[in-house]
């Protein structure tokens, strides 16, 4: 199988370059991450992140044949050769396929990704009705791999000001949570031409999400709630 992989080591390379690899293996049921691990046996200077290798941790997000995805759940047989692998677009490259996610997590933290409830904690858990709990489906599953935000042109352009699809999906996850008491402040925090309204419904986020979530829909619901409280 043929691969073209983005290589860059800031200590030794003047600029990034694409390196060709040839790997003798049968695609079969193997995932892209399996191939990367074999390539790393060939060339141990190749750098990439991975952990759970089953699409749960979100650490092996990368740009595969021009499309963001998780290497561990992308089957090799579905990919056209040479398989071109690049780091997630728009983020600073630390080395090869490893990017600096600091900006991404800064935006994530800015939406207060935790439950705000000032009532004294009950003996057991804070209960929700099954109907209220249903509202969190399609939101809580986000693994923060960064595929969506780094596929978003608005995030490429204003990563320091626009929260990005992943952060906004999480923002709505807490706005939608009936146990949270900070809704007004959360909406205030997002009522901003840059933080929320840079989203122009391009929907790259929905297209690439490896967990098949829909950040655009969540952003639409945030806007709906803002309209409801304003009119």
């Amino acid at each position: 199988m043929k691969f073209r992989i983005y290589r860059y080591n800031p200590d030794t390379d003047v600029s990034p370059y694409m390196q060709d690899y040839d790997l003798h293996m049968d695609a079969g049921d193997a995932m892209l991450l399996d191939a990367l691990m074999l390539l790393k046996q060939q060339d141990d200077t190749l750098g990439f992140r991975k952990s759970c290798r089953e699409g749960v941790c979100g650490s092996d997000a990368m740009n595969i044949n021009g499309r963001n995805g998780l290497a561990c759940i992308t089957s090799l047989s579905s990919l056209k050769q040479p398989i071109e692998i690049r780091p997630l677009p728009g983020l600073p490259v630390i080395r090869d396929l490893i990017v600096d996610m600091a900006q991404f997590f800064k935006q994530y933290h800015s939406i207060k990704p935790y439950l705000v409830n000032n009532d004294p904690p009950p003996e057991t858990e804070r209960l929700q009705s099954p109907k209220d709990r249903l509202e969190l489906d399609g939101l809580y599953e986000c693994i923060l791999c960064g595929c969506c935000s780094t596929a978003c042109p608005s995030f490429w352009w204003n990563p320091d000001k626009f929260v990005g699809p992943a952060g906004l999906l999480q923002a709505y996850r807490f706005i939608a949570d009936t146990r949270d008491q900070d809704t007004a402040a959360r909406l205030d925090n997002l009522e901003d031409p840059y933080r929320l309204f840079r989203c122009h419904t391009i929907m790259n986020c929905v297209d690439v999400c490896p967990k098949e979530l829909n950040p655009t829909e969540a952003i639409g619901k945030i806007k709906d709630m803002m309209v409801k409280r304003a009119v």
Partner: protein
Amino acid sequence: MVNRVVTGAHYGLRDWLVQRVTATVMAIYSLVIVVYLLLQPSFGYDTWAELFSGNVMRTFSLLFLLSLFYHAWIGVRDIVMDYVKPASVRLLIHVLVILALVLYAIWSVQILWGL
């Protein structure tokens, strides 16, 4: 002044909503014009002159143009916010765009009512 990235202007919803409302007004106007013209046996100066002779059509047209200008203001402002980084230059361009659009609005009234 320290050079920090600041957000939190607390506006945006109204503009986003206005952009949708103005788009709807423009869509309805365009549809009305297309349907009206298709229903005419022939296109000519008379067709246009008759269409714009009444105050209803003139007012509707002005509403369309005002929608267009407001819609354009939000769109152009968003582009300037994306591409022009120094705040002073951005403010200057915003002012110039507003002035141009206000002039267009006055000009539209002059054209529609033949003043």
